[in-house]
């Protein structure tokens, strides 16, 4: 199988200057915007996006057209682009931000036009400094070109874009936590209801929050029609998607493909197969929050619904391959530790439970584990995500808690003996 480049087309064809407006325009950029402003209407744009069947590329996979339709009528309204990519294993937004920022900007302008928005923000994580520089330079170029600011192309539509930097908090990738962070507060998720961003978002006004990759697809959709987009990929997972492949493979990296192939095909054809020809012990299909698949599930299709049915999630589109020599406990501990450090601390189960699990795993790793620890880990997990079901139930405010539970459940489900081997047995004489 091969890549299908829609969003990554321009950057690969013009590696030297894909991030400049000159190159972008020379290669057809901002044509979609012109078309929309001159010949279309907000309603028509919304219809195209609905027709495309595109689902959010951030991790939740919510149908974008539906999301746009939910936006309340009250003014002022805001658009916020979520560029706080922090899910371990994911680096697909980074390539879009660094190599083709104008695609994102064009998507933002079209989106704002369609939803009667005149102020937009792009929230970039602080560690992506280079990306932020590229985006800011691009925004400036766009202002100069006249596609941003007052009365764009003489249509009366105006838009301001502000580039805002995050400061090192994974939880700010959660949309309501992001809005809190953008308001100058602690990045703590809000209660939903009532704080659905479409009704009560930034400054309690209606806000659209979209992922970088989602918004990058908008120009193509408007230029080539939503229907054309929906024909790509498969039912329930329309279009192309950039997957970030990492771990024990020969060719880690970002690959844009039409959805529908299997993980095996993806890993072998594009990822060059497992490093040193080893076997796959386990792999994570959708970023650190996703439950693990074992080598036996490589033939699951890479679509949102297939992966969900198989007991995990496509999530942020990050595939992490772990070979037969990987210590599963260490991998699990790394993920649990991540969530313990990134927990915002608001609610009891996540704040206390994730740290507790981290401490237990550390103890097991250092040889001081106890026989009761495995059940204890599972019970703590049950107190965070009752029933250990999939999709998970939660006793917490946001899904970060249940995400921390995924590796524990996967670890105990598939690799329990490995853990038990680390726990010293009592020797009776």
């Amino acid at each position, binding site marked *: 199988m091969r890549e299908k480049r829609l969003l990554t087309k321009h950057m690969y064809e013009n590696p*030297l200057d894909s991030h400049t407006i000159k190159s972008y325009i020379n290669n057809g950029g901002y044509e979609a915007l012109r078309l929309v402003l001159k010949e279309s209407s907000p309603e028509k744009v919304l219809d195209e996006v609905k027709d495309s069947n595109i689902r959010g590329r951030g991790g939740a996979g919510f149908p974008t057209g539906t999301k746009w339709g939910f936006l309340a009528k009250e003014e002022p309204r805001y658009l916020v682009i979520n560029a706080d990519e*922090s899910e371990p294993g*994911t680096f697909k937004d980074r390539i879009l931000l660094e190599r083709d920022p104008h695609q994102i900007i064009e998507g933002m302008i079209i989106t704002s036009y369609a939803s009667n928005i005149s102020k937009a923000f792009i929230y970039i994580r602080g560690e*992506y400094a280079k990306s932020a520089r590229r985006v800011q330079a691009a925004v400036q170029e766009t202002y100069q070109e006249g596609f941003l600011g007052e009365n764009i192309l003489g249509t009366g539509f105006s838009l301001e874009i502000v580039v805002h930097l995050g400061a090192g*908090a994974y939880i700010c990738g959660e949309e309501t936590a992001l809005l809190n962070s953008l308001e*100058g507060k602690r990045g703590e998720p809000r209660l939903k209801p009532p704080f659905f961003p479409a009704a009560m978002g930034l400054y309690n006004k209606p806000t659209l929050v979209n992922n970088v990759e989602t918004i990058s697809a908008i120009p193509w959709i408007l230029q080539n029609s939503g229907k054309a987009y929906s024909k790509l990929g498969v039912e329930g997972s329309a279009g192309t998607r950039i997957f970030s492949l990492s771990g024990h493979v020969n060719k*880690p*990296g970002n690959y844009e493909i039409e959805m529908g192939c299997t993980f095996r095909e993806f890993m072998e054809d594009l990822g060059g197969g497992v490093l040193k020809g080893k076997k796959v012990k386990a792999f994570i299909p959708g970023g650190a929050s996703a439950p693990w698949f074992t080598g036996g599930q490589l033939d699951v299709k890479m679509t949102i619904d297939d992966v969900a049915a198989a007991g995990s999630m496509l999530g942020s589109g990050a595939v992490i391959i772990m070979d037969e020599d990987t210590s599963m406990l260490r991998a699990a501990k*790394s*993920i649990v530790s991540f969530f313990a450090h990134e927990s915002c601390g608001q609610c009891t189960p996540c704040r206390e439970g994730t740290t507790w699990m981290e401490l237990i795993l550390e103890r097991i790793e250092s040889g001081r584990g106890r026989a009761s620890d495995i059940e204890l880990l599972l019970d703590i997990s049950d107190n965070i995500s009752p029933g250990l079901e999939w999709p998970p139930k939660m006793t917490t405010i946001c899904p970060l808690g249940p995400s921390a539970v995924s590796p524990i459940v996967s670890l105990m489900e598939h690799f329990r003996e490995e853990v038990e081997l680390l726990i010293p047995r009592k020797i009776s004489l």
Partner: protein
Amino acid sequence: MSWKKTLITEAKKLIDMYPEKRSALGPLLYLALREEGYISNEAMSEISTLIGITEAQVQSVATFYSMYKQEPVGRYLISICKSVSCEISGSSVVNKELMEATNLNHLESDEDGIFTIEQVECIGACGGAPAIQVNYETIENIKEGKVSELCNWLKTEQPKVINSDEIQNKFGGITSFDWGIHDNSGTTGPYPGFQGYKTTGERL
């Protein structure tokens, strides 16, 4: 020390960019970080006056985020990723080497004020694992031995601007994706180099 007039003017410009003053809290904290290398109590007092919230509220936000350093840091902040992709690709070996090369532990700074090291979570360079950042400029796929080289180079050269292309060339391996054109922009200290907060510099 209270903020100079020019700094306050810069701060007010940032505040004007947002519909509500408080949104500028993040950017103003970056200004404070730029001026003093960490978020001092005086800086938090100044910011609280500019924005109109209490110092306790500024402190509450500043301490929530890991990039707003609460203690003075060295000129070069070396952050090594410890998340799962890097962990299974050997980041612990690199970490050990970093700790030995600098003789420091997590979030410690050396006496000369040159290095601070920290272990951080995923920096989005998983395709080039293991990865580190120097002042938030990324080096992907840094192999054994290269870390000590990096530390030596930083110590002797003391570059004014850290540029990711330069350090990737010198000390890195494969990248997560093709970085495309090299550019000379970088950062001037232990904070992200961003034009909006005047923390960028050009490598000569």
